């Protein structure tokens, strides 16, 4: 007989009852995106690790208030992002987002996506520089929604704002990016 993987809702219920192994599974499932989000918002790998770990500890302790049936990931990201924002570095001291070396690909991503193939490295660097020049709130919205590929709901949770605010920030940020990129052509 083969054990089937537990559904997340079942893991949450077990964790609510004090099952730390269930929580460990949840941490391992979401730690990647939690760390990346914390890194993008805090601007430091060390702060991101600390923020993500604190976030998972606090989330476990707050499980009693997690609404049953609600998606877990936005809730976790909200807690972790809140920790990350508290550790946020000034723009001048923040690690700049950077491109991977041209020949490198992520594990399991041997073939660049068709979208990635469309972009030359030069235009990627130009776009990244334009993103980094946005105001903090526009940059964060763009980074979370597009670069980290969070859903709109997750972006709102990570930024601690309503979905409508995410939409308006993204709209203004895209407009600004278009202006900047057209000006550089």
């Amino acid at each position: 007989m083969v054990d089937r993987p537990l559904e997340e809702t079942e893991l949450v219920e077990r964790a609510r009852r004090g099952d730390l192994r269930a929580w460990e599974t949840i941490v391992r499932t979401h730690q990647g995106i939690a760390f990346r989000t914390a890194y993008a918002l805090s601007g430091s790998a060390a702060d991101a690790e600390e923020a993500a770990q604190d976030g998972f500890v606090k989330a476990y302790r707050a499980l009693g208030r997690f609404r049953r049936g609600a998606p877990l990931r936005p809730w976790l990201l909200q807690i972790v992002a809140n920790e990350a924002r508290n550790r946020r570095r000034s723009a001048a001291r923040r690690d700049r987002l950077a491109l991977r070396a041209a020949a490198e690909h992520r594990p399991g991503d041997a073939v660049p996506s068709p979208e990635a193939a469309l972009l030359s490295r030069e235009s990627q660097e130009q776009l990244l520089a334009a993103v980094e020049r946005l105001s903090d709130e526009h940059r964060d919205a763009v980074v979370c929604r597009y670069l980290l590929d969070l859903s709109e709901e997750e972006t709102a949770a990570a930024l601690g704002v309503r979905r409508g605010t995410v939409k308006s920030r993204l709209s203004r940020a895209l407009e600004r990016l278009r202006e900047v990129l057209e000006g550089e052509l």
Partner: protein
Amino acid sequence: MSALELRLRALGQSLELPSEPDLAPGVLERLEDGRRPFPWRRGLALALALVALAVGAAFAVPQARSAILRFFHLGGATVIRVETLPPAVERPRAGGLGRPLSLPAAERQVGFRLLLPPFKGREPGRVYVLGDSLATVIVRAHGRTVLLSEFPSFGAQGLKKLAVGKTVIEPVRVDAADGLWLEGGSHTLTYFDRSFGFREQTILIHGNVLLWVRGDLTLRLEGKLTKAQAIDLARRVR
């Protein structure tokens, strides 16, 4: 999705991000530690030892102060020195403190007996309760209005943090209890708001703050008192 949005998505796939740490061992260790009987006694002793050590070292080498004084735990409070303060709102004196309740109702709500300074005449008519763990009363002392807040030192409900920029942090004693004195500069107080699920609210504070632990409670005085005045008031809180 527009071409620009597609380009941004593709850009995300090309980012060089730091390698992702395995967080699970650290998370589990902290959670398991919290289950042991009286883990806070050991944690507190360790934290205070570190505070004393760090503060001593920092004050001996002033230029190293910002590098060393970064992270303190005291009871249910965490003091973090950060480069820039997070977005925060100014708090009106009694605004944002929570629901005003009578003293008995507040004690029922928070589940512990409030420690108070001796009052001339009647006890305070109002206690402000945030969620069901943070209680605040407004006290007059040394001609000033001061906020006295109390919350359980440990457990999820007592979560509380302070983020500090240029503020001086100094360990102090309140009778036999250990405490932290935060003076000068602006700093922020972030507290846990249970009524909205897991959401923290951050407010901007300009006054001085004394934090100390008594029994299972962490107490906090906020106002424009001197250190001596704050410690004097804290000693009378019973």
